């Protein structure tokens, strides 16, 4: 598999890396996790800037869960976002509020939410 539009990666993937041992190979669900995390981080930055408190740095971790459903097929059932932002002049509540707005505005959140659960937690990092 390769990224034809940006040529930024070329990666092997296997069924084992999808449901079992990773062994350095990616999977569709890991790519969705990377897509959701990178989408959410831009939305969070926008919301914090809109609130007058642009972030210095943000870190976002996304975990995608795929599970077997009753029919025996596999489905993406959940995406969990955990974010931390270094934001001068903002408090925890401001970051949490921006994260809720980012979740509402991020197109990948909307996409996943149509068929699975999306949960978000966010906190202030650094700063004093």
């Amino acid at each position, binding site marked *: 598999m390769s990224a034809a539009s940006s040529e930024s990666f070329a990666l092997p993937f296997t069924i084992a890396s999808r449901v079992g041992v990773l062994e350095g190979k990616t*999977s569709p*669900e890991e790519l*969705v996790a*990377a897509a959701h995390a*990178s989408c959410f981080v831009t939305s969070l930055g926008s919301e914090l800037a809109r609130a007058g408190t642009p972030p210095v740095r943000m870190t976002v971790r996304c975990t995608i869960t795929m*599970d077997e459903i009753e029919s025996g097929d596999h489905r993406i059932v959940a995406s969990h976002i955990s974010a931390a932002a270094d934001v001068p002049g903002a408090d925890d509540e401001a970051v949490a509020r921006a994260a809720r707005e980012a979740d509402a505005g991020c197109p990948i959140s909307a*996409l996943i939410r149509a*068929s699975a659960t999306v949960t978000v937690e966010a906190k202030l990092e650094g700063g004093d």
Partner: protein
Amino acid sequence: MAAERTANVTWTGSLQEGSGRIESVGSGAFGPLDVTWEARTEDSDGRTSPEELIAAAHASCFSMAFSGGLAKAGTPPERLDVSATVTFVPGTGITKSALTVRGTVPGMDEAAFVEAAEVAKENCPVSQALASVPEITLDASLA
């Protein structure tokens, strides 16, 4: 069995001038990969975007579902070349994912190949996750 897959991203600076990086993924298969707003909507210039990652997810998911379905039907493929092109409209979201597959499958005719490809498109977990995307197309034929 549930499978969890993770990715870690950092961003520094503003949306327009700043930049992000997919630092790492749980498998270690890739990263760091640079991500920018410009790469998302204008010139990608060697940097990836959430939508390109969704395209990679969809293409790889479809290829596994199709390969699995063909093997189950007793006609395992020799090779499948799959591409997915995702269309992103700022302010709206992802409006389309277009799958293309060219396959070499000994003992299979064109009609059966296309039918099996349609089944894979409907059933692969990423297609299901993209259920709210207005348009998912498939162009399938034997190589």
